[in-house]
C-alpha cells in the first residue's frame, strides 16, 4: 500500500516546495535522470517529455532524460557520478547497489501483473515444472529480471536448476519457443499476453506462475542532497496518479492499468541477490 499521506501532510503542493527554497541551495541545477530498458515493462513511455514537464513543475529543478538500453551503463554511470537518478528494474538495482553501495531506492512503481511464468505449447505433454526436467527453456538475456533472474530463482527453489537446459536467447526467445526449438518459455507474464494476442488463447499454456517480482525503483545517487531525495519521494507519492500517467503509456496498454507508487527498502531485493549468488554471479 501507499504511504503517501505522510508526505502530503508535510507539503501540500508545488507552491509548498517553493517555500522551502532556502533548503535548496545544495540542489543540483539539473537532475540527470536515466531510465533503463526496464525489461518486461511494456507500458513504459518511450519518450519522457510529459514526465519531464510534470516533475520539473513539482520540483522546480530541470530534468535531463536519458533512455539507456544497457544496465551496465546505468550502474557504471551512477558509480562515476554521471547520473543523479535512475528509474531501473529490480535486477539492475541489485547490480547498481553492488557497484555503488551508496545508492538508495526512494520509491518504486508497483505493477499488478509482474511475475514470471513458464509457458509450453498447448498440445505438449508437460503439465508442471517438474515435467521439464531434461528439457530446454528459452529465457531472455543474462541479468533480466523477469526473463532470467526471476525464473532462475523458481528453478533453484524447485531444485531443477541443474537438470534443465536454459537457453538465453534475448529477443529471439519467443520465435525459438514458438517454432518448437525449446520446450518451454520462461518470461514475464506480459510476454505471455503478447504471444496469446498473436496466436490466440488456445495455442499456449502456463504451467507455472512465479510469485510477484520486486518493484521497479527510483534510485538516487549518493551525491544528491538528502533534502532533495526527501522532496522527490514526497512528490512521487503526492502526485502519484499524475506521475504514473506521465510515465506509463496507457493508450496502448490500458489493460495493464493499476500501477501504484510504493515505498521500498533495499532488503526487498534480497531475492535478486540470492539468485545472482546461486547462479554464481558476483555483484560488484
Amino acid at each position, binding site marked *: 500500500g501507499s504511504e503517501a499521506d505522510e508526505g502530503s501532510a508535510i507539503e501540500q503542493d508545488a507552491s509548498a516546495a517553493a517555500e522551502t527554497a532556502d533548503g535548496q541551495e545544495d540542489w543540483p541545477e539539473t537532475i540527470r535522470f536515466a531510465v533503463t530498458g526496464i525489461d518486461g515493462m511494456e507500458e513504459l513511455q518511450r519518450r519522457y517529455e510529459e514526465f519531464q514537464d510534470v516533475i520539473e513543475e513539482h520540483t522546480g529543478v530541470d530534468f535531463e532524460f536519458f533512455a539507456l538500453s544497457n544496465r551496465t551503463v546505468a550502474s557504471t554511470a551512477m558509480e*562515476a557520478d*554521471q547520473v543523479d537518478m535512475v528509474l531501473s528494474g529490480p535486477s539492475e538495482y541489485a547490480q547498481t547497489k553492488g557497484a555503488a553501495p551508496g545508492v538508495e531506492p526512494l520509491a518504486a512503481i508497483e505493477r499488478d501483473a509482474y511475475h514470471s511464468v513458464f509457458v509450453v505449447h498447448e498440445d505438449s505433454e508437460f503439465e508442471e515444472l517438474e515435467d521439464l526436467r531434461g528439457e530446454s527453456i528459452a529465457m531472455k538475456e543474462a541479468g533480466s529480471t523477469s526473463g532470467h533472474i526471476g525464473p532462475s530463482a523458481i528453478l533453484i527453489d524447485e531444485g531443477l536448476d541443474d537438470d534443465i537446459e536454459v537457453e538465453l536467447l534475448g529477443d*529471439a526467445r519467443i*520465435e525459438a519457443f514458438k517454432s518448437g*526449438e525449446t520446450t518451454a518459455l520462461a518470461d514475464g507474464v506480459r510476454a505471455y499476453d503478447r504471444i496469446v494476442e498473436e496466436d490466440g488463447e488456445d495455442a499456449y499454456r502456463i504451467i507455472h506462475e512465479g510469485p510477484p517480482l520486486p518493484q521497479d525503483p527510483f534510485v538516487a545517487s549518493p551525491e544528491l542532497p538528502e533534502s532533495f531525495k526527501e522532496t522527490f519521494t514526497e512528490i512521487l507519492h503526492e502526485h502519484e496518479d499524475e506521475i504514473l500517467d506521465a510515465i506509463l503509456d496507457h493508450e496502448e496498454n490500458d489493460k495493464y492499468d493499476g500501477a501504484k507508487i510504493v515505498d521500498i527498502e533495499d532488503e526487498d531485493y534480497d531475492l535478486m541477490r540470492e539468485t545472482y549468488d546461486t547462479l554464481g554471479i*558476483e555483484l560488484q
Partner: protein
Amino acid sequence: MNNWNEQRLSDHMPKRMKRPPTGAWILFIIAAGFMISGLINANLSFTRLYEGLFNMGNFVALAFPPDFANLQSIFSALVETFEIALVGTAFGVMLSLPIALLASSNTTPYAPVRTITRSIVSAMRTIPDLIWALIFVIAVGLGPLAGILTIVVDTIGFCARFFSERIEEIKKGPSQALQATGASNFGVISGAILPAGFPSFVGTSLFAFEKAIRSAVILGLVGAGGIGVELNTAMSLRMFDEALMIIILILIVVLTVEQISSRIRKKVI
C-alpha cells in the same frame, strides 16, 4: 613573352576552382547544417571531460588484472566461434563475388540489374541481425546453422558492396585487352578483374571474418553460444576482469588474421 601570348596562356589556364554543381552545393549545405546542429546538441564541455578522467582510473582498475580463471571454457567458446565464423564468411564471400560482379558498372552493363542488386545488398545490411536471426531460427532451428546463415547474410551485405566498389575502380586497360581477344565475360572477369582486385578481396574477406568473430550478437540470438556471448555476459554482469581476458583473446585472433591478410596481400599486390 609578349602580351598576346600571355593572354593566350591565361585563356587556357584552368580556373582555380571549378564551381561545384548546384547539387553538390545543396548537399554540402545540408550536411553542414546537420553537422552544426549535431555539434551543438553534443553539448561539448571541457570541464566535464577533465572531471571524467579521474573516474576513468577507477573503471579501468576494475578490469585489472585480467581474470584468466575461465580460460579453458572461454577458449573452447572461441574455437566454436572461429569455426562458425569461418564457414559463414567462406560461403558469404563465395556468394559475394558474383553478386558484386552483378552490381558493378564495368562488369554489368545493364543499369537496372545493377540497381536492383545493389538495393538488395543494401537491404540485407539494413535489416537488423535480430530479424535475420529470427528468420533463420524459424527456418532451421536454434544452433550453429542459424548462426552461419546469419553470418552469410552479414558477409554478403558487407563484402558484396566493397568488392563491387573495388571492381569499379579497376583500370579498364587489361580488361579491354582481354575483351579484344574475343574473351567471354567470364574470361575477362577471371583473367583481368579478379587478379587486379584480388589483394583487396582478400583484405575485405578477412575483415569480414574478423567481424564475424567479434560480432557478439548473432550467435547469442540463435543459441549458438560462442565467445561474443561470453563477452557480453561478462560485461553485463560487470565482470570486467573476465571481459578483459576475452578481449585479449579475441585481439590475438584479430591480429593473427591481420598478419595473414597482409602476408597474402603483399605477395599479390
